[in-house]
């Protein structure tokens, strides 16, 4: 339940609002009536066991799955997300764990994958795509030796930042990140976190799925806990503790009564 748990003034409209969204696969109910909202410039962490429904939830937002029931609102108006294209049209960019990039292509090709720039003759405008890539790398403070190298050769952190860069370049207002730093070392994790803070300060709303409560507490403004496909509760990060969140994850119910505003 999200009543009253808002990080901004009561008047602000959430940029995304899910009302009673459900999804099942065969006999398995992956999402049960989930209602959640997300505001501009906030980082919302989603935590829970494996199988709690976190990945399903973001796939419904990213268009990889279509919800069976429930409503989705974007900036206050009702929308339908039936494909990855629908999701991107709503400025939602999703960065999947391990599936973000085309390994056999180089950095500019990945940045513009599916949204390639053509020149007036209708063919690929490689030089413009390279120029735009350089601009994007500069904005992200990312150093890559050669644009021609296939991304499979880059480090995990670089690849993650390129995937984020792609989202940002195409003017994402909502960034969904599924375990972005799970496979990264300490320094690279720091790099990605710094980038996330930078984007949040620019007003981008970020949904972060992570198993690492330390990361979630360090980055998120609010934390949503899921269990067995249902939303257990949402807490403002500074109003809760790791123990409380853990008990919500394990027991499936909020530790304290929710504060009604």
């Amino acid at each position: 339940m999200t009543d009253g748990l808002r990080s901004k003034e009561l008047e602000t409209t959430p940029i995304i609002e899910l009302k009673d969204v459900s999804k099942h696969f065969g006999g398995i109910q992956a999402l049960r009536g989930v209602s959640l909202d997300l505001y501009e410039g906030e980082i919302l962490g989603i935590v829970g066991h494996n199988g709690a429904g976190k990945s399903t939830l973001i796939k419904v937002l990213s268009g990889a799955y279509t919800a069976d029931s429930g409503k989705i609102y974007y900036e206050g108006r009702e929308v339908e997300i039936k494909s990855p294209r629908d999701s991107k049209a709503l400025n939602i960019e999703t960065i999947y764990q391990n599936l973000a990039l085309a390994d056999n292509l180089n950095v500019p090709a990945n940045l513009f994958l599916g949204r390639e720039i053509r020149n007036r003759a209708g063919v690929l405008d490689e030089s413009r795509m390279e120029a735009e890539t350089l601009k994007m790398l500069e904005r992200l403070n990312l150093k890559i030796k050669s644009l021609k190298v296939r991304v499979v050769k880059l480090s995990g952190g670089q690849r993650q930042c390129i995937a984020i860069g792609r989202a940002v370049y195409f003017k994402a207002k909502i960034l969904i990140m599924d375990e972005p730093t799970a496979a990264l070392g300490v320094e690279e994790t720091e790099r990605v976190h710094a980038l996330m803070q930078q984007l949040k300060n620019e007003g981008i709303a970020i949904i972060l799925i992570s198993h690492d409560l330390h990361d979630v507490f360090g980055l998120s403004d609010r934390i949503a806990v899921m269990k067995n496909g249902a939303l257990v509760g949402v807490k403002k990060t500074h109003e809760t503790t790791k123990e409380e969140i853990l008990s919500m994850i394990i027991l499936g119910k909020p530790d304290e009564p929710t504060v009604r505003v």
Partner: protein
Amino acid sequence: MPVRWIKNIDWQKVGIPLAFFALCIIFTLTTDRFLTVRNLTNVARQISILAFLGYGMTFVIISGGIDISVGSSVSLISMVTGGVMVSSGNIPLGMAMGILCGTVIGIVNGSLISALDLPPFIVTMATGTICAGLALLYANGMPIVGLPDKFGVVGSGYIGPIPVPVVIALFFFVVSAFVLKYTVYGRHVLAVGGSEEAVRLSGINTKLVKLQAYALTGFLTGVGGVVLTSRIISGYPNLGLGMELQAIAAVVIGGGALGGGFGTMTGTLFGVLMIGVIQNGLNLMGVSSFVQMIVIGVIILSSVTYDVFRKKRLAE
């Protein structure tokens, strides 16, 4: 200094063309007929057909699929071309129907593979068998004769000093290479072959990309089948026997990876040239065609092995 320079050469790009030219030099030195205009023209004419199949196969293999129906398609295309041409007396109509037949086969392959998500190897093996059966059924296993002689110009004629099939093959080479390297579609084919799921999540219609690759192959196979039919001026029910394997060999020799995501049209062209030159050179040297088969097999094995090693080094 010289050693470092050698290490920096991109052997993937330079290796095959180098090997090809080395072979040409060897054959020039060991036979007196290799480097003659007549011989080279013949070789070029013969491998033009393989080139058409190779271009299509390049798209399909890069997209992560495979098409082993192309040989049998050629047989059916030949029968359709011959049959229509004889019954209507109309050369362009016969040619058009042949190319259409090839394209339809390609679309069928592509639809089954992408829409129904069936494995390409099995699907094209099945459609190939069906095509081979249909080709034999067409005239009860007999060839179709009586095609107008003028049709022979396509397969045996010249434009200036260059045989017509070579001109057509070069034209389609330029078009295919351009599409693969410079168009959005070509980029998508490469992407789908490399990481299909990641590409799907980018919003690209991966099913359509794959379907188009098979349709393209069907069209090019149609052109090749019509040209080959013109060379013998008859519809022959076994015409394309074994050609799919040569086409795949050409792509692999040229650096295309069977897993998808890698390959170039230029590489395939050199693969085609290699196969043609080796068979021709060994013929001129009097080497039995059985030994030739072994030689081609060894070359394919070496290319694939080299390719795998290169991939491993890339991943490190």
